[in-house]
């Protein structure tokens, strides 16, 4: 007897990790639901299960109160074990702000986020230049497109040694750079003194991990001041859908069991 045909792909389920002190978790979840029509599934830091989500967001906030330094404790949370495995398997992981800090501390992305050059917390709209559209997170942007997306952090100065820097450049892993409204990277347009104006990088075995300091979930509808973050979530959704379509097609193409 033939089995029933496989169901078509459902909207994506995106896991949002909740650490004690996360405070952009629901913002990220809402942005996902609003832009993708998908479902946000909140993953508790003390659990060890990703509940079969299609992608993972490590959100912004002050996990563990930024004790020691931002992200230093969160990397030891039980949930980070399955996140690391998911990353190694090519699962899509997006770290925003504190999430970027955590991914760096966990060794899932290179480099580190140090105290802002001005030593103060900076919350403002900044401009980002899209350096790389060949990632699952930026395919809906144009190369060189200038985005207006807010930052809000005290420790966002991307820093790394020369070897890492050369590798990032060589692998075309810089995804966003701070710039002005006209797309020029200048010291004035760099809110935190990041090396080479780096605002976001991609890593992981299949360029499947993005870390960025600015908050795309805060630029997801016009009345918030910008819709430029929508493209990022749509890129993510499209990448997931492509993956699902491929799996769906493969499943249909497979010979029916006799």
């Amino acid at each position, binding site marked *: 007897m033939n089995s029933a045909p496989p169901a078509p792909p459902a909207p994506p389920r995106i896991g949002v990790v909740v650490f*004690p002190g996360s*405070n952009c978790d629901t*913002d990220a979840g809402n942005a996902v639901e609003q832009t993708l029509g998908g479902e946000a599934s909140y993953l508790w830091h003390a659990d060890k299960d990703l509940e079969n989500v299609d992608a993972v967001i490590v959100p*912004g*906030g002050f996990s563990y*109160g930024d004790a020691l330094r931002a992200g230093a404790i969160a990397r030891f949370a039980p949930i980070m074990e399955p996140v690391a495995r998911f990353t190694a398997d090519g699962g899509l992981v997006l770290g925003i702000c504190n999430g970027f800090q955590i991914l760096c501390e966990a060794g899932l992305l290179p480099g580190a986020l140090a105290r802002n050059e001005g030593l103060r917390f900076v*919350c403002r709209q900044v401009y980002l230049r899209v350096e790389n559209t060949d990632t699952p997170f930026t395919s809906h942007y144009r190369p060189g497109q200038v985005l207006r997306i807010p930052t*809000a952090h005290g420790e966002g100065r991307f820093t790394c040694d020369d070897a890492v820097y050369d590798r990032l450049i060589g692998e075309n892993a810089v995804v966003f750079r701070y710039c002005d409204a006209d797309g020029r990277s200048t010291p004035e347009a760099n809110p935190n003194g990041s090396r080479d104006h780096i605002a976001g990088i991609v890593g992981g075995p299949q360029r499947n991990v993005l870390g960025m300091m600015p908050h795309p979930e805060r630029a997801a509808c016009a*009345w918030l001041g910008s819709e430029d973050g929508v493209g990022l979530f749509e890129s993510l959704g499209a990448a997931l859908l492509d993956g699902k379509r491929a799996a769906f097609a493969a499943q249909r193409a497979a010979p029916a069991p006799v």
Partner: protein
Amino acid sequence: MPIDPKIYREMGLNDAEYRQIVETLGREPTYTELGMYAVMWSEHCGYKYSRPVLRLFAEYKKAQETGALENAGVVPLGDSGWGVVFKMESHNHPSAVEPTQGAATGVGGILRDIFTMGARPVASLNSLRFGPIEGDGPVAARNRYLFEHVVAGVGGYGNCVGVPTVGGEIYFHPCYNGNPLVNALSVGIVKLDNIASAKASGVGNPVLYVGSATGRDGIHGATFASVELTEESEAKRPNVQVGDPFTEKLLIEATLEALATGHIVGIQDMGAAGLTCGTCEMSAKGGLGMDIDVLQVPRRESGMTPYEVMLSESQERMLAVVARGHEEEVAAVFRKWGLQAAIIGEATDTGRVVVREGDTVAADVPAKSLADDCPTYYLNAEEPEYIHRVQSADFSSLPEPDDYNAVLLRLLASPTIASKRWVWEQYDTMVQTQTEILPGAGDAAVLNLREPSTPGASPRRIAMTTDCNSRFCYLDPFVGAQLSVAEAARNLSCVGATPAAVTDCLNFASPEKPEGFWQFRRAVEGMAAACEALGTPVISGNVSFYNETPDGAIYPTPTVGMLGIFEEGVEPVGLGFQNDGDLIYLLRPDGWEHESGIGGSEYLSLIHGREEGTPPRLALDAERRVQSVVRKAVGARLLRSAHDCSEGGATVALAESCLAGNRGAEVRFAVTDFGDQPWSAILFGEAASRVIVSVRPGADQDALLDLAEDAAIEAVFIGQVKASERFDAAGLLDLPLARLRDDYENAIPRAMGEK
């Protein structure tokens, strides 16, 4: 054994109060009991001097009479079944000696007042006042230090706790030298059915202590807040509590989750007077008693006495009464969030708070006597001698400025008027992704709430502002307080919101001096009358007295925090000019001669060094009509921008609209429209009830003029928005925007030595 009078006097009690305690107890109090009475009967907790005056506020009087005085007031959001909770509180004295922690714990304390009602905090604002930060010398340096660290404290706490700091105000004036004001306001939203009570109920129900462990910090903080600041105040730094926003964030989530179990019958935060206040107030409200054992209270320091445990003001703690049999379920929620949760006693029917340390009774007092029987005093009020002198000042011989451009630039570079970007960029203004109008973009902060979640059926946009021009209040506390209320309501109307309710923070000098008490009483009278006329009842608030140093008292500063609610479908309007060619109108009461002149203005103070005259005239009915026209025009989408005229008058308001919209303007004033006053008064006078709007020519313009005419409001055409990037006014001023921007944006960074 009788207690040495020195001891209770040191704690702030007088002889008569001590005798009342002995009479109530029928014996000498224990040391612990004495400490409990001293904090609960301090002005900070007991409002012993202010209560008789606060009864001028209708809602306060009603609540006091019905016993419904809860932690913060609630305003329903239409008929959505949701409500907004908001309250403002001062943390002035702690911030004067330990600015970072003083400000941080001010934010934390007011947030707890909100979520203890079951409301999720959605925004914070704050009203901050410091001495001048410009120039050399130790006083300015100290003011810069206080300013920098208060801002860091507000930001550090609010950013971590995940509640956006969306607005407020900052003033600089020598009257705040050594005595800064830090007034923190917090707003939350709650389903009306889910409002939590601060009443103990159910004899035998366990009393659950949750949050941080108790340490020795902040002992007698409330008493400290009830005396003047002196040289020795610095030695009171140990009286200042230390805030932990991370724990507060956990406490917010855990409290809301625990309340959702339905098993918490009463809950209150432990702020001023800590465990003493929590046990006595909850018991008194519920007509019950409590029996607790301090040995069960989680500690972070060893060897604490019952006195220290009962008086500690350690932060991030709450006290809950839980339905018997469900205490483990509720405690488990707090433990899941990594917080302490300990049963420390139970509710009793004795009406007494009994504090044990194991087998020893450390205190046994009637709860009501601490919570409700604080003696009140009808103090002597006397008009200060300066009032007549300043009000009769004559400015007719003052010279007109040679260079109006220079005057405008000086006003824009005055830190009180200048851009506060340096401050608000240190605050997370956007977390929770509900902030629609950010600081600097409109006359009030606007939130577009996610809840109530029935689009099209319920109002979801709210607006908030804080306002007080303390110079006006100094010149005439009655009119000054009215002007503060009017300005707050005007700011809300400018963004399009209907003013709904007020929370106040009444910052004054010592009430024990007749002049100080007169200022207080007159201001409250003015505020109550204005709130009545504008339909914005005072539903919560706080009094801070003793704001004086050996160098003098602060100006009376009755800060008004006001909440506005948008009608469904109304989109907010900002203050920046939007389109080249739009027409600029000044809306003001019809037939008004505008002879308010320059009395009490920033211009008079800054350029002529005089703080005299009478504040601008205010007719509350006219004010209401101006605001109504603005709101109707916003609702009908006629306005491109709206901005009220406040410090610096119409010219500063116009310059701000240019800068916010990055557009120039060509402005022409007809002297005859302004009662033939001198140009300085026309350009920089601070007459009340005025709003500058821009409108598209044609149908929108006609509709606006019709609205104004119907309400007997004058719409004076004064100019046009230009692409020119120049601000040109009255043929007397002509400056490139870049020049205005440089002074406006960089004044504070420069004063802080950064540019």
